[in-house]
């Protein structure tokens, strides 16, 4: 039998229902000193490269091409060291009815209504799929309400969280209209061999969310979810450059942003082109499980 370390044992014991998590005063004391005076760990902000000058990043998602396979969801989870205790990961994918039923256009998210679900297990060609993640809003309510300044907006358009400043008050979570933020309810564990060294590990009690893959995009790469999408539904780019693919897409295609009435100025645009005819349909990865606070 594999030797269990203490943490795993505690987890298993509590999962079995018979366990009772005992406090660990020494650990708490140690932690308290660390919180007040800082620890020797490399600060999270040092993981983030400097903002790219002159750039204004954003993303375009073509709903006509999204098949709802959830590949982005799982790839993002791996890329960003998201532990299993966080569910759903940064991306939620919704299945919804055809908006008008006439043209096959997905008119607007306001049309998300009857039959919309996050827990579909089979893909259907007559349905629409809609991934939602942090929109990196220009008027981000989460940044506005954060008491510590842990959530901040960088000049290149990214909304980031400094995990060494966040006090876990969760005001940002109540203020985000898109449900994009996740809280570390438990100590996050990602085994060493699976960990991405470019992304800082979080601790329990802090908030995290999509970073637009800051460790990649500021080094000139695309985000992981863009890379992994089998039908290239996602496009990432610089909106300050009029020749970039994203700028052109926004100029030429019909598009909308989520909950535009709230004036949050999201940096993710959704295209409402008709459904792409020649698409590869993959089997979907499983829906998110064990979501806290959601009846399953």
């Amino acid at each position, binding site marked *: 039998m594999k030797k269990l370390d203490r943490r795993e044992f*505690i987890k298993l014991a509590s999962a079995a229902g018979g366990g009772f*998590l*005992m*406090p*660990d*005063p020494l*650990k*708490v004391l140690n*932690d308290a000193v660390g*919180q*007040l005076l800082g620890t020797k760990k490399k600060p999270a902000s040092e993981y983030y490269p400097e903002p790219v000058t002159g750039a204004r990043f954003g993303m375009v998602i073509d709903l006509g091409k999204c098949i709802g396979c959830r590949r982005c969801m799982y790839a993002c989870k791996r890329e960003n060291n998201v532990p299993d*205790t*966080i569910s759903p990961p940064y991306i*939620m994918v*919704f*299945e919804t009815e055809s908006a008008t039923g006439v043209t096959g256009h997905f008119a607007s*998210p306001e049309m*998300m*209504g*009857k039959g*919309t*679900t*996050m*827990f579909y297990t089979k893909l259907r060609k007559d349905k629409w799929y809609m991934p*939602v993640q942090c929109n990196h809003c220009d008027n981000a*309510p989460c940044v506005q*309400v*954060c*008491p*510590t*300044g842990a959530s901040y907006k960088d000049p290149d358009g990214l909304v980031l969280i400094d995990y060494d400043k*966040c*006090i*876990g*008050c*969760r*005001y940002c*979570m*109540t*203020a985000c*209209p*898109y*449900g994009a*933020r*996740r*809280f570390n*309810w*438990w*100590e996050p564990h990602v085994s060493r061999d699976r960990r991405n060294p470019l992304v800082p590990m979080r601790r*329990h*009690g*802090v*908030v995290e969310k999509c970073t637009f893959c800051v460790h990649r995009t500021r080094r000139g790469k695309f985000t992981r979810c863009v890379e992994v999408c089998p039908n290239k539904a996602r496009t990432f780019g610089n909106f300050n450059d009029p020749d970039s693919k994203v700028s052109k897409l926004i100029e030429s295609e019909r598009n909308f942003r989520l909950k535009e009435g*709230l004036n949050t100025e999201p940096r993710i645009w959704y295209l409402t082109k008709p459904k792409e005819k020649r698409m590869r349909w993959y089997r979907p990865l499983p829906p998110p499980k064990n*979501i*806290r*606070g*959601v*009846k*399953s």
Partner: protein
Amino acid sequence: MKNAGKSFYIFIAILLAFIGWGGFNWLRFLSHGPGLTGSSDVVPWGIYISGLAYFIGVSAGATIVGLLIHAFGRHDYEPVGIRAILLGLLCIFGATQFVLVDLGVPFRGLKVPIILHNLTSLFLISSSSYYGFMAILSGELYFSIKVATGKASERDKKMAKWLGIIAVPYALWIVHAFTGSIFGVVKAREMWNTPMLPVHFVISAIASGFAMVILVAVITSKVEKRDLLSNETLNHMGKILAFFVLLTLFLDFFDYFILRYSAKKEAMEGWHILTGRYLPIFLINEGGLILSLLILTFKKGRTANGLLLATSIIQVAIIAYRIDLVSVGQLAPLFPGMGELYYHPTLSEISVALGLIALVILLYAVLSKVLPMEETAPEPVYASRGLGKTLWKKNKKRYMEVRN
């Protein structure tokens, strides 16, 4: 401690047991993460924030009594004057502790607002204002005690008076209205995002706070077996309370009326949850307020026993309102298709909340014994406190006569 019988120590022991239990559970949270609470990514704020809102609300009672004494010259309120200030101070303290246990990284939270701050955050503005409120109330307490013990100079008397008056706009405008705005400004949540919320919060705060002062006065009279306040004063208090309860009901009604009539999508979902799955809390809130108002309209309801009943009901009703406001306000899903959201506080979460409530009661019980709570002028009555129980009982009638 003077006048502390055996039952007092038993009471303290029970409170300590609650505090110990809550502290133990808080240590568990700190060791393993806040996952031991019932909150979730979809309902990030639970009963701790309700507790914050409730305690901040109750602290308003202190200021209203101060206003009645100092600005309106109701000197018959003086026996509860210092008690109300102490109560307000401890409630603010309790509220900050509720914030502390809610934080995911609490000790880092102590760096707010000096080291970590973002001035656009209403959480920062309101929680910093609590420190200011604590300072004002501590000053008021200090000078009022000086006045009560007869050691005050003219300047001290003026300080007590003016701090008491300044506390009112500071509390209502800055502390309470901004605490209400914490929720009011969140445009993501239809149930919160209304300009009425700061007003609503202030009014319900006054109702619960004033009710708490009355409750404390009545309980003190019962425990110490004497009349702290005259029947006339109690009657007057009951009338003021009835007015604020009525105002709270009025605001409740129009809040829900507008919400229901405009029938926005998310607000309707919230309304259905409020009056569906969470109907009992809603009924306790509105039913409790109506019931207490009914009690208060009768002259009999404005005597000690009637007030005891009515004010207890109001506390329960306002706690229910805070839970509705905070937790049920978040239950409408931000997108359809997220599934049915729920929030059930866990036992350990509740134990921490009870522990904090016990802590506030304990501090009040001890401090109100240690500190002089009333003017020491009519000597015979207070000398009697130092006497043995039998002697007090024997001579009770005579002492009461002297007092009146």
